[in-house]
């Protein structure tokens, strides 16, 4: 497939390794990968705060970066940015061109589960990992059944990782409780945000896992800051990095 990468600002500027892993693993799977120019931000920091006027030009700039780009899918290694982009594109542009872009948007895990599954892994990843089930991915993108919901359960994140040899997947207590990042919540509500993150980091460390693995870089960056502040014996890894290491 021909895939256009949607690399959110946080990943581009602060976590390029996540983007590189995403690129490499998609290439190893035989896809042709391009990076459309002119992407900055999905507008989430503004719309999340209620400031839709302030988000307009940023959102439209991102949308324009993808309009008319020839590709089969637009893949993003960040669930909350992906959700925000989808919603904001709808909000600010209801043209057929915008809808064509929206229809091609996929979060990486979603893409690897629903659209182009990984046929086989080549290398083992013999580590215990604690999955970080970030809110936007599970409750807005349905990557896994939220713990509040009853009935049949599914978990795309675990399903994508499960076939890697040697991998041991565990979950923290209160498995999908929010880590407390929440965009500007992390600075506006510093004390509560930090306490939520601290509790989450400790719950991950208490599993005895070597890595906290997640699909949302912003949650991971927040957890990383709290893990290092508390000197917990665990490190963050994005799901793309784990998958890339096993291919």
């Amino acid at each position: 497939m021909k895939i256009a990468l949607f690399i959110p600002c946080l990943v581009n500027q602060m976590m390029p390794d996540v983007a590189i892993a995403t690129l490499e693993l998609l290439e190893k799977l035989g896809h042709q990968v391009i990076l459309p120019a002119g992407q900055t931000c999905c507008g989430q920091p503004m719309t999340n705060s209620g400031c839709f006027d302030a988000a307009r030009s940023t959102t439209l700039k991102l949308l324009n970066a993808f309009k008319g780009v020839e590709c089969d899918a637009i893949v993003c290694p960040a669930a909350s940015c992906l959700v925000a982009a989808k919603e904001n594109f709808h909000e600010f542009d209801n043209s057929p061109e915008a809808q064509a872009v929206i229809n091609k948007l996929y979060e990486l895990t979603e893409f690897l589960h629903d659209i182009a599954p990984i046929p086989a892994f080549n290398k083992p990843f013999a580590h215990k990992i604690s999955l970080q089930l970030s809110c936007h991915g599970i409750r807005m993108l349905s990557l896994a059944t939220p713990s509040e919901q009853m009935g049949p359960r599914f978990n795309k994140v675990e399903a994508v990782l499960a076939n890697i040899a040697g991998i041991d997947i565990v979950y923290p207590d209160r498995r999908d409780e929010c880590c407390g990042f929440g965009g500007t919540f992390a600075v506006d509500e510093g004390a509560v945000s930090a306490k939520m993150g601290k509790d989450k980091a400790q719950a991950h460390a208490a599993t005895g896992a070597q890595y906290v693995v997640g699909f949302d870089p912003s949650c991971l960056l927040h957890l990383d800051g709290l893990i290092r502040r508390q000197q917990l014996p665990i490190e963050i890894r994005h799901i793309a990095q784990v998958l890339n290491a096993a291919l």
Partner: protein
Amino acid sequence: MAYQHNHEAMGSQVHAYKADIFCRDETRVDWHSKALWLLREKRDRAAGSLPEWEQLRQLGSEIKLHTLTNLAQYLETFEQNCLANGIKVHWAKDGAEHNRIVHEILASHKVKKLVKSKSMLTEECHLNPYLEQRGIEVIDTDLGERIIQLAKMPPSHIVVPAIHMKKEEVGDLFHDKLGTKAGESDPLYLTRAARAHLREQFLSADAAMTGVNMAIADKGAVVVCTNEGNADMGANLPKLQLHSMGIDKVVPDIDSAAVLLRTLARNATGQPVTTYSAFYRGPQVDGEMHVIIVDNGRTEMMKDKILAESLKCIRCGGCLNTCPVYRRSGGYSYNYTIPGPIGIAVGATHDNTNSIAWACTLCGSCTYVCPTKVPLDKIIHHHRRLKAEAGKLPYGKNAYMPLVGKFMASTTLLNCSMGAARTALRILPGSLLKPFSGAWGKYRELPVAPNSSFEAWFKKHRSL
């Protein structure tokens, strides 16, 4: 910094400030969070034991939405059937009118002491101080409510109102107010003391008042749920009984009430059903029964399609128990009678600090927990937009958000400044940077900065 400036300007009012104070006692935060999470776990077990749980939620949502859509019709039916049952019906447009009506009824019967079972509506209307100022003694009879009434505090949770108090603190309070043994904190001993004390109140009261969980239109009856039987002790002893309800409490019939009763207690505390679920459909012999139907802003809320859905709420408190922010900031940080997600949904409009709509990470857990599918995270987000459009943003957002918008929309600005930030993060010691990184650096280590952006890496490694 705009944020710090505004934080101080708004003083002790904003949610973050009050939550910050609550967070200073981390042991208490952990205990508070754990106590409420236990309720969430009980809820999960109770909900999970019903194969039809998700269908019940869907039904509950549809029943409430249908009733709200045809509200005038159902309220009229309810009133007619109440009147036919010998119940006196009153209409109040707001809290002040509600309080005046209640006082008139009580005054005409020369009531000196009123026993009240828990009602968030009477809290919303500030009924207790109103009656007390007019010489009527009001006794809250729900154990948790009585505890906070004796401590002169408002409820900090809608179902477990004294959840913020430890048993030792209740022991000290009871020693002071009820004469129990000093230093005694055994829950059984304290509960027995409260029971004896409340028994005296029930026997000496002239009238009883309760909230209403559901009002059944086709029967002209009200349903009152308590775990302690206190509403029934109250309503069955004196000859005068009053029931206050919001216009949103009406349901079409007994079958729809049954659906909501199946989810209410399960979602609140994990019980199959509330211990006492009483249906009142007429006065006692020689007695009087009054129902006061209150609007107090609900009709206004229904004009906004998104906000209207918050009126589907049946006040189980499940969203508070699951909310990671509520559990770590406490009920008193919300600047409204009702805290937590539903408190934001119904209270943000009245929040003069304009901060409670932002006391949420939009994680969505509340929406999935809700037994009537109130889209709480959507409502909270919508409140933020309404506040922004009204120019009422907290935390300095009015000043900096347009700048962030311009900044993020410019590739050059973003690349230059982030490049500089990465360099600073790499070469300067953390201690030097922390004061400049605001709340992020106060609580967390700063990110380990990479050498370059992905875009630059891509140009170098993938350009043909």
